[in-house]
């Protein structure tokens, strides 16, 4: 029997709230964080809705407790806020008391600042403020978060597109199980950038309206931003501190669809494999799952592929499922972390989360997402799916303790 992995803290910042409490409120009232951006300097600002965190970089710096406001990317700021909240919620006072590490993920890191740099640099190679390019690589935000947490231990960065943060949580659990760490802070952060908005726009998969995951009329995703982190602890660690866990990470699986560089296979083979691996790793059977937080981006391709995989894995008896991306937007490299936090909130609050904007069942499927939240549901196990470019598919299972 493998070592048990407990979650003792969760932290989140997203378009539906700047902390866990606010996010829970929004979920209860079915609020969406998607709308017209206040800060983004894009020609598509009024045309492409996004899930933006409602604070400016200065406000985020303040919230993160940072006095030096100059050299931080928005991705790092969001990450620091959510990771700090997770650590505080886990009631960790001395972060280096146990062998503690940080696994952070991001898809574009400090791209928001690189864009500022490149505006001048692309015209004249001697121009552009260097501090704006110094945060370009994906590892910078991780290092920055580790510093702000005063962490002396191991840290690393995962970047597997939209499954990144789920892979970070999976790696964290494996590091603890293999004795490399007692405690891991794992999750991801991604800020909105012109780069990703224009990138997904060039792929023609951005909806000009609110995204409608698993709806027959769905026509793309809404990009969001934010960060979500969990604190994973070993059983020994938990016993020593006498803490009560919020949930347990019981299963995880990563598989590759190996079908196409960006698209998922129509039958969802990679998704099927990842979910099956997660079940197997946790000795969990499909009928034990009470709720699925689906990847559900709202693109025609993803929802069909994921839906087919779910129908196959659950043999037609698919439990309650919803895509919280309908409220938060698709937060790319952060989504696995944000959705881990939401999955745990669902268990702790006995609440099945709603999938907003759903109207019409997809022709190819026999299943529909949950339209409105359902209260007083005893959820023992939640399946959370995160799928990325390159067919990188990861599924996690969070369980009640």
């Amino acid at each position, binding site marked *: 029997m493998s070592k048990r992995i407990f979650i003792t803290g969760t932290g989140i910042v997203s378009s539906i709230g700047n902390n866990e409490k606010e996010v829970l409120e929004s979920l209860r009232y079915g609020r969406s964080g998607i709308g017209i951006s206040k800060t983004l300097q894009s020609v598509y600002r009024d045309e492409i809705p996004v899930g933006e965190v409602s604070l400016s970089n200065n406000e985020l710096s303040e919230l993160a407790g940072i006095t030096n406001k100059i050299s931080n990317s928005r991705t790092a700021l969001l990450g620091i806020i959510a990771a700090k909240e997770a650590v505080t919620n886990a009631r960790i006072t001395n972060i280096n008391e146990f062998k503690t590490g940080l696994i952070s993920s991001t898809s574009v890191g400090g791209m928001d600042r690189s864009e500022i740099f490149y505006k001048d640099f692309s015209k004249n190679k001697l121009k552009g403020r260097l501090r704006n390019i110094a945060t370009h690589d994906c590892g910078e935000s991780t290092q920055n978060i580790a510093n702000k947490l005063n962490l002396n231990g191991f840290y690393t960065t995962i970047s597997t597109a939209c499954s990144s943060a789920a892979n970070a949580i999976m790696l964290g659990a494996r590091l603890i199980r293999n004795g490399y760490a007692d405690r891991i802070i794992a999750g991801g952060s991604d800020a909105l950038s012109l780069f990703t908005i224009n990138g997904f726009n*060039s*792929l*023609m998969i951005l909806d000009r309206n609110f995204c409608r995951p698993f709806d027959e009329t769905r026509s793309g995703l809404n990009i969001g931003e934010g960060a979500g982190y969990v604190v994973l602890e070993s059983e020994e660690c938990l016993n020593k501190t006498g803490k009560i866990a919020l949930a347990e990470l019981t299963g995880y699986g990563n598989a590759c669809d190996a079908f*196409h*560089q960006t698209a998922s296979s129509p039958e969802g083979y990679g998704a099927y494999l990842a979910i099956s691996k997660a079940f197997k790793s946790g000795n969990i059977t499909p009928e034990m799952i009470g709720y699925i937080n689906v990847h559900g981006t709202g693109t025609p391709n993803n929802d069909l592929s994921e839906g087919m995989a779910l129908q196959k894995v659950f043999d037609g008896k698919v439990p309650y499922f919803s895509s919280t991306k309908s409220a938060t937007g698709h937060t790319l490299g952060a989504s696995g972390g944000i959705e881990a936090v939401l999955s745990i909130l669902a268990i702790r609050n006995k609440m099945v989360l709603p999938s907003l904007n759903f109207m019409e069942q997809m022709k190819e499927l026999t299943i529909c997402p949950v339209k409105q939240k359902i209260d007083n549901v005893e959820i023992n196990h939640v399946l959370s799916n995160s799928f990325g470019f390159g067919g990188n598919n990861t599924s996690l299972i969070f369980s009640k303790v």
Partner: protein
Amino acid sequence: MDELIEKLKVEIIEALSLEEITPADIDANAPLFLDGLGLDSIDALELIVLVEKKYGYKIQTAEEGKTVLYSVKSMAEFITNRQKS
């Protein structure tokens, strides 16, 4: 129309870096995707950009793209029809 077709062939080869293919290898009526030239959905997106950049006509949706980008001929027809209207 024939002139446009030949021009398009050259532009497609360049845009998609089809190094080993000459304009003569492309049958204007044959499907560009799958069995035809073996192009994929990323190439389709590149061709949508090509039509807009070189001719100024925007293909609005992926669905429209499927019809317009069926063959070099269908691309040429789309452009000619737009030029007329």
